[in-house]
């Protein structure tokens, strides 16, 4: 699927769009409606797993804010994805505790294994890689979170085993 086709598919997903519009309508009743932009972007990302351009256009229209401003905000904050993430999102903790316990090696292992860098998606679309800052599980450092699950006390070997489990599952 090309990007334009993907974008068209998104724009025509009426159900999600209706949900988003309803959320926006709620916020517009407030005294400071524009202040809800970040909350709206969170909602959009929750629905679409990233922020597609047509969706940002919709937001611009509904909130009467220029698209350029929305784009500026969306790019400023690391939390927002502007491209679709992989099927499994790997967040590697680069917090201090994880770092002193060997997160750099785990990151190297992930780079070697997946052959992608931070913020990228593997060609098969299975994994994407992003940094995290302290997942609050320092007792298990170094840790990696895949989707919602935390994997701790990692070694390069253990990391590879975990990736293989996800790969095996995907084949099924």
């Amino acid at each position, binding site marked *: 699927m090309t990007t334009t086709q993907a974008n068209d598919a998104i724009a025509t997903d009426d159900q999600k769009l209706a949900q988003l519009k309803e959320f926006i309508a709620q916020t517009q009743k407030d005294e400071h409606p524009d202040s809800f932009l970040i909350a709206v972007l969170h909602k959009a990302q929750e629905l679409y797993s990233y922020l597609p351009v047509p969706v940002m256009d919709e937001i611009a229209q509904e909130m009467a804010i220029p698209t350029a401003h929305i784009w500026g*905000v969306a790019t400023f*904050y690391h939390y927002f994805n502007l491209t679709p993430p992989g099927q499994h999102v790997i967040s590697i903790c680069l917090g201090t*505790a994880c770092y002193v316990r060997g997160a750099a090696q785990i990151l190297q292992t992930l780079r070697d294994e997946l052959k992608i860098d931070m913020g990228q998606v593997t060609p098969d679309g299975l994994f994407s890689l992003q940094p995290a*800052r302290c997942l609050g*599980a*320092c007792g298990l*450092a170094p840790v990696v979170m895949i989707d919602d699950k935390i994997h*701790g006390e990692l070694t*390069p070997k253990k990391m590879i085993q975990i990736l293989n489990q996800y790969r095996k599952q995907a084949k099924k």
Partner: protein
Amino acid sequence: MTKERELAVATTYRIIVCDGTTCINRGSRNLISRLREQLERHGLADRSTISLSGCLGMCDKGPILVVNPGYTIYGNVTEADIPEIVEEHLLHNRPVARLAIQEDHLYNRFFRVFGDAKFFGKQMRITLRNCGIIDPENIDNYLSLRGYEALARVLTDMTPESVVAEVEASGLRGRGGAGFPTGMKWKFTAAQKATPKYVICNADEGDPGAFMDRSAIEGDPHTVVEGMAIGGYAVGASKGIVYIRAEYPLAIKRITKAIEDARAHGLLGENILGSSFSFDIEIRLGAGAFVCGEETALIHSIEGTRGMPRPRPPYPSVQGLFGLPTVINNVETWANIPVIILDGAKWFQTVGTETSKGTKVFALAGKVVNTGLIEVPMGTSLREIIYDVGGGIPGGKKFKAVQTGGPSGGCLPEQYLDTPIDYESLAKAGSIMGSGGMIVIDEDSCMVDIAKFFLEFTQNESCGKCTPCREGTKRMLEILTRITEGKGRAGDIEKLERLGNMIKKASLCGLGQSAPNPVLSTIKNFREEYEEHIHQGRCRARVCTNLVTYQITEKCVGCGACRKVCPVVAISGTAKKQHVIDQDKCVKCGMCFNTCKFDAIVKV
């Protein structure tokens, strides 16, 4: 201990299961159904309660169970241990010694609440007083431990001025890092005429190795809600906002529920407890930008724009959110407020040092035996924290440094271990109190690499508004990178110092002003490591890849595993004979080192 607390703690059989992030990940939730099943089986179900709690601070021993009667803390509990605990402990009143974390009976100050684990001995839990004891999602639990009593007292017996005066008299200083006197901040906002006014709870927790605020909210969200309501009354604000990191879903869920429950009980909303005071709280999510922890950037973020700082004055207390007077305090600062009201400024003053009153929460982590959340009185020494509470360095390794203040702070070596924790002493030693990250570093870490780690973080998080911060940190990072790659030049250390001091002076906000600190403090305290890298091409911790060589020792059994993984075919040797690495070909990827099952490959 208060009567209320004793009552609440003394139900017939009360089993507390830690529902903090680390324990959940170690399988605490699987224990619950097993517990239920076993209690049923022995007919104990109707006399027992199982409750969940926030982090107890002993995460490395998770999952944690606290079993009453007996106040016994069990660690590393698996599902298979549950039948034994129920049968032995509950049925026969014989605590299971094998799983109990009981170390030293001298340390029994918290016995009634926390059992006799040594971990709690030097601690004093004021802001975390309920963490690990109450179910954070149950408002009745909080109410039974004098919850919202401080708010009720304030609304019935105290004028806003007297609340501000009490907080000022307590000597409480901001726990978000800078240590600004809270009472004074409130006084400025209270004096403003413009309305509406706002109070904000800063739960953006930016330090990338810290989880104090997250655990505090996960473990006892009502304390923060109550503190904010009291603050709102004191300064005349009608609206509160919690600005919290989107990366903290559990904390968000719990603070949201706390706000809803408080509202349902008439503790938030119109005419609270029948008074003329109306106040409500709203939640706003951050979106992963460290600089948004800075108060003016945070305000921009709540307003829905890019979170860039602006010059102060005007301070937020005068012109804050939407241009209106705003008090911004850290989570932990807010959590102190109900206690100050209940027990009085006079009592609060007795805890801590001359200039720093009360306690401080730290997220203790890194190379230390007990990692987790701790709360100690100000004035406790770093040594007591690391060795008595933290249990020292694991694996017989040697202590090298302790890092406080995260990317704005510094690394202190052994000779500073007796420094008491307070704002001034830590600053004098060359670090800062910071928001509570405390990372212990042992001989396996390279100090140049650590400095580079922090600078990479701040350089990446610089909002780009000021040139010294944006470009200066880039230059510094280049120099550090070349030093760690073995390409350092004479004069690099001096250049780092010059650049660092320039950035500190010329940046607009605290991010730029403090970004060079990790570098400057490691140069000050570990200069010889920088010099070794530059002049001898040596990294004593063997961390900087370019400066280590891999060698195969006589432990080699000739299995050939390393030869197969080497991407550049640098390893040769015949089966069952010691292999060798061709140093000219080796690209130092470390694959062979990680592969060898016989520890035959060493870094030198």
